[in-house]
């Protein structure tokens, strides 16, 4: 008999607070624990969510922002990692500056994005001086835009460094002589990247992408500072229905959270499946 009781300390936060919290979310989405809810059926909150198109639009919008920002971050992060890795060894210590966004809090990243992208911001002024725009209004309204440009860029800034960090750690174990061999066999730089380096990074990039996608799909801070309320990301709708509407509307917020949980769990399942296989292969 193995000492399974040794797992107990970690089960405390996991079972009591995490799993318990999700069970409470589900219960409240069914209209329970709330004296002001008098639904005719347990599923009323879900019916409200599924029959009002603005919720569906919100879910799709979150999906879109998460997809675009994670894709940008994965592409840029990989290129950044590859460029840094190809530098001579003595320069490697100096690349540490790329880690700055990793320690920046999300609300700080959101603020920096605002300074750079808003109509009175840095890029707008630059465009004016370069003769691209004639007035402040000629600069596109990127923050609070309908297309989620502000959110996408803020997430991309934060996440590119994360992708680079993960990719560099894999590349460090990769033998540079593969590149020389490929070059001797006549492969061009682009071909080397796509057929030698990229296949090696595939699993790590997939798992990193999944993590970033789940995060930007469900996080609150960046949309709260940079987002437009319509369509608005899913997390903003939850916030709205939990805090801004009266108590009887709370099951709607909970139903949205259950949907958020289901989508994220599905992706998290994929993540763990791939990363556990990676661990086994690596050992």
């Amino acid at each position: 008999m193995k000492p399974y009781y040794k797992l107990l300390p970690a089960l405390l936060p996991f079972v009591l607070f995490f799993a318990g919290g999700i069970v409470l979310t589900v219960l409240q989405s069914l209209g329970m624990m709330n004296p002001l809810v008098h639904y005719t059926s347990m599923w009323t909150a879900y019916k409200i969510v599924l029959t009002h198109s603005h919720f569906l639009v919100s879910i799709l919008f979150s999906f879109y922002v998460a997809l675009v920002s994670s894709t940008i971050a994965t592409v840029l992060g990989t290129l950044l990692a590859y460029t840094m890795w190809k530098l001579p060894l003595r320069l490697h210590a100096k690349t540490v500056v790329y880690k700055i966004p990793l320690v920046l809090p999300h609300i700080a990243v959101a603020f920096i994005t605002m300074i750079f992208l808003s109509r009175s911001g840095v890029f707008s002024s630059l465009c004016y001086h370069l003769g691209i725009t004639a007035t402040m209004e000629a600069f596109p309204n990127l923050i609070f835009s309908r297309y989620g440009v502000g959110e996408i860029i803020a997430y991309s800034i934060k996440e590119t460094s994360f992708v680079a960090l993960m990719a560099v750690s894999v590349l460090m174990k990769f033998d540079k002589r593969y590149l020389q061999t490929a070059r001797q066999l006549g492969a061009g730089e682009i071909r080397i990247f796509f057929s030698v380096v990229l296949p090696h990074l595939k699993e790590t990039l997939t798992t990193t992408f999944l993590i970033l996608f789940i995060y930007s799909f469900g996080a609150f801070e960046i949309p709260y500072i940079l987002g437009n309320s319509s369509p608005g990301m899913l997390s903003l709708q939850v916030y709205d229905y939990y805090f801004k509407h009266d108590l009887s509307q709370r099951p709607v917020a909970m139903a949205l959270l259950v949907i958020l949980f289901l989508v994220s769990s599905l992706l998290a399942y994929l993540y763990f499946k791939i990363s556990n296989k990676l661990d086994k292969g690596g050992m």
Partner: protein
Amino acid sequence: MAGLWFVFLFPLVVLVIYSFAGRWTFPSLIPDTMNFRTLTYFKANGYKILTHLGSSFLYSIVAVVLSVFYSLVPAEFLSRADFKGKKLVESLLLAPAVLPVMTFSVGIHIIFIRLGLADTHFGVALILSVYSYPYMLRALISGYKTIHPDALVCARNLGAGFWQILWEIEIPMLLPALTAGSSIVFLVAFSDYFLVFLIGGGSVPSYSGYLFPFLNSSDWSLASGLTLLFILLPVLLFVVLDLTVNRLYRKWM
């Protein structure tokens, strides 16, 4: 290389310039006037700023301590035992860091209110530890893997007791993992805005909560200065931890 430094440092440089900008209107590329209004503000509101920073520091440290408490023994077990379903258990225990925090925290809010944990420092530290302990667990699992089981057997054969093994072998060997885990948990807790807002409900002072209204205001100078202060503490902590741990190591080796 210069490009890399430029891209990553430029935003911070802009924050510094903004902190000292007086009037900076479109489309000027440099501030129209400069002043030390931000520093004057810091001085005048020093007590308030320090209280909020201190409070954030406090609940973040408690979250770190809680995460060590949750993770230490399970990490030892998971790094050494091998059983069916181990991967599943490990994945489940790491899940709170992967899934959106809103999904469990908003649901549990009502219970925190009933138990009197809402609006308390401990409640905030508790909820922060729930989604940040996986970083500690993960770091400690890999930390324990660096300790060869034979080293412990050897120490026991040479007559070392439980405490001696813990103090002279396990803790020094685990220190890098412990430092790494603590730094991440601290950073995650210190940077958080939503959970502190939800569970702290405004009665637990937090620096992120203090900073927030400034970010949404039109006073970008003050917001920049306060943001720099926000970034400063985690960065400083990283540098200090890194230096002290490295020094300790040289002493031991």
